[in-house]
């Protein structure tokens, strides 16, 4: 589904990603772990197509097609979703209105009619129940005055509404208490199918207790320095990132 080959990327002239290789297939959950500044969020942003990042070498392809020159909204239309580490506030635009616009724009791109209002309402009801979201929440301005937990839950609500093929969760666990973490993880697990894939980006192993990964990759200094199964996360938790840093240096 997603294939990253020897990816190098930089921002403001500084090279952040230095040769990433990663392949994600339908039905898989990949965890990307690593210390601060290792390039985790940059990787997510580059996959989503954020323009300030410049790809200097290598390529990303999605479902066999090179994503180079594909605008972020077109990537979204193809089924790539990113849950933001710091979701953005848009005053005066309700969660519902935002979702309605997002869904209909994607449908338009696929040559479909706008989603009928009753179908939209049904979908909203279904997904908000799944994530234990209060209906009042949906009429509030997008992310404005939301608590950290509300923001993250709102991201997963959008994920549920848009039903992407590939979901990238960028530090979704940061700022969440244990209850919110459970709800969010439960939501993600419910949305998993054999056809879609998830990339979980996290600093800590905690989230991976709830969203069990098939593969764990450790990112350090712009490169994947180690890959393994879910037990790698536990090992990291135990030994810390220093262990790997030393290992790669050695």
């Amino acid at each position, binding site marked *: 589904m997603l294939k990253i080959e020897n990816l190098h990327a930089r921002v403001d002239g500084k090279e952040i990603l230095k040769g990433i290789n990663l392949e994600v297939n339908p039905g898989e959950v990949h965890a990307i772990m690593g210390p601060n500044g290792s390039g985790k969020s940059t990787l997510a942003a580059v996959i989503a*197509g954020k323009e300030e990042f410049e790809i200097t070498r290598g390529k990303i392809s999605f479902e066999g097609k090179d994503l180079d020159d594909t605008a972020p909204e077109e990537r979204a239309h193809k089924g790539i979703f990113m849950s933001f580490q710091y979701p953005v506030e848009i005053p005066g635009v309700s969660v519902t209105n935002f979702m309605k616009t*997002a869904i209909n724009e994607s449908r338009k791109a696929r040559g479909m009619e706008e989603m009928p209002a009753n179908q939209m309402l049904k979908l909203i009801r279904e997904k908000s129940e799944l994530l234990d979201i209060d209906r009042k929440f949906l009429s509030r301005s997008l992310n404005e005055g939301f608590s950290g937990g509300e923001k993250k839950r709102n991201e997963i609500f959008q994920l549920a509404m848009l039903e992407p093929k590939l979901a990238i969760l960028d530090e979704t666990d940061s700022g969440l208490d244990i209850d919110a973490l459970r709800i969010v993880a439960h939501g993600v697990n419910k949305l998993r199918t054999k056809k879609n894939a998830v990339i979980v980006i996290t600093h800590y192993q905690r989230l991976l207790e709830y969203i069990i990964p098939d593969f764990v990759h450790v990112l350090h200094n712009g490169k994947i320095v180690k890959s393994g199964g879910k037990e790698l996360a536990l090992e990291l938790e135990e030994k810390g990132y220093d262990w790997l840093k030393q290992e790669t240096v050695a």
Partner: protein
Amino acid sequence: MAYTEEQLKKELETKEYEYGFYTNIDSDTLPKGLNEEVVVAISKKKGEPGWMTEWRLESFRYWKEMVEPEWANIHYKKPNFQDISYYSAPNKKPKYSSLDEVDPELLDTFKKLGISVDEQKKLAGVAVDIVMDSVSVTTTFKKTLAEKGIIFCSISEAIREHPDLVRKYIGSVVPQKDNFYAALNSAVFSDGSFCYIPEGVRCPMELSTYFRINQAGTGQFERTLVIADKGSYVSYLEGCTAPSRDENQLHAAVVELIALDDAEIKYSTVQNWFPGDKEGKGGVYNFVTKRGLCEKNAKISWTQVETGSAITWKYPSCILKGDNSIGEFYSIAVTNNFQQADTGTKMIHLGKNTRSTIISKGISAGKSQNSYRGLVQVNSRAENARNFSQCDSLLMGNECGAHTFPYIEAKNKSAQIEHEATTSKIGEDQIFYCNQRGIDTEKAIALIVNGFSKEVLNKLPMEFAVEAQKLLEISLEGSVG
């Protein structure tokens, strides 16, 4: 494809003014220049009574002694007032008994503007008094309104048919010598609308007027007078478009509202005059005086969406004369390219327990300058006056400016005045967030701007709000790089 800065720039450059077409109708136009003979000629052409001619001449004499105001935060080449023709009317005899008699080309213009003059308006509940280059061409639904005793007609007709009302109220809120442009308007106003709602009557439909400047080099001087008698209610809509022209077109309107005891007037404007091209060439100069007077327990709400004009100088105001009266001002002002707007309101609290609310949303893009200027004045006898003002500015790009000039004068200790102001910028992060959800940049800007303007858009009547929302999108297309 991703929007690169270059593509956005190109799109912005190729965007033509949507309503930039010109109707080729024979016009009866006075030669350029202004003197007492011209003033008399205008009055004569309109078949006005002697007192009106005198009133105009008096205004002209005031105007001659006045100088153009220079305090506004706008920079432009002053119009040469002797190089303007002060009267232009469609040549075919106005006032048709049916639409079949109307010049087909004129009807076509209306179609382009999206105005349906036909019976559909009745279904929509809108009566339209269309002012095309100064003379009312057709007024619909007068009958329905007449049954309630409501008078809705051109000001010229009102001067002839209802001289007592006009004579009593014209100039009562905006005196002839109020300011340079008001004096000019009082001398040469060509036409405009008149509306009277009798005591206790609730006007059953939104009254609507479309203004349009159509003759090259013709200034348009509209005069509007709305009188809501005791306990009555009216919602009045004013919408404007104009074709593109190379030279600047001067527009100096005067609107007077009178809300007698317990009456309410809602006055909504969508203004979309030609703003000039991307180089800042052409565009309408809009110098407007709008003011309303509230008697006891009366209420006046001004709602405006200003997207057009090269220069906007406009401060819809309320004089809260009666005790417990309420004044409201809700405004969205959009400037793009080289547009300049200096707009706001004046709330003059004279009566006890008077209240006013000001919500102003300024959106600046391109190289434009957008200023809010507002005065809240509490008179010494205005016990317990309250005001709340909120001025928000949204910036797009790095070359535009937003300015806020709030003036507060409180002469009564019991006054409570609150002022809030914010300035924000559409961020790349906001755009990327929307992009990531499948919303392209243009749509994202529209969404963010609509969210920013929501409090004001909500104050507009339904069908007008939809139009205004579209206008915001059109005005800002391609303005973020």
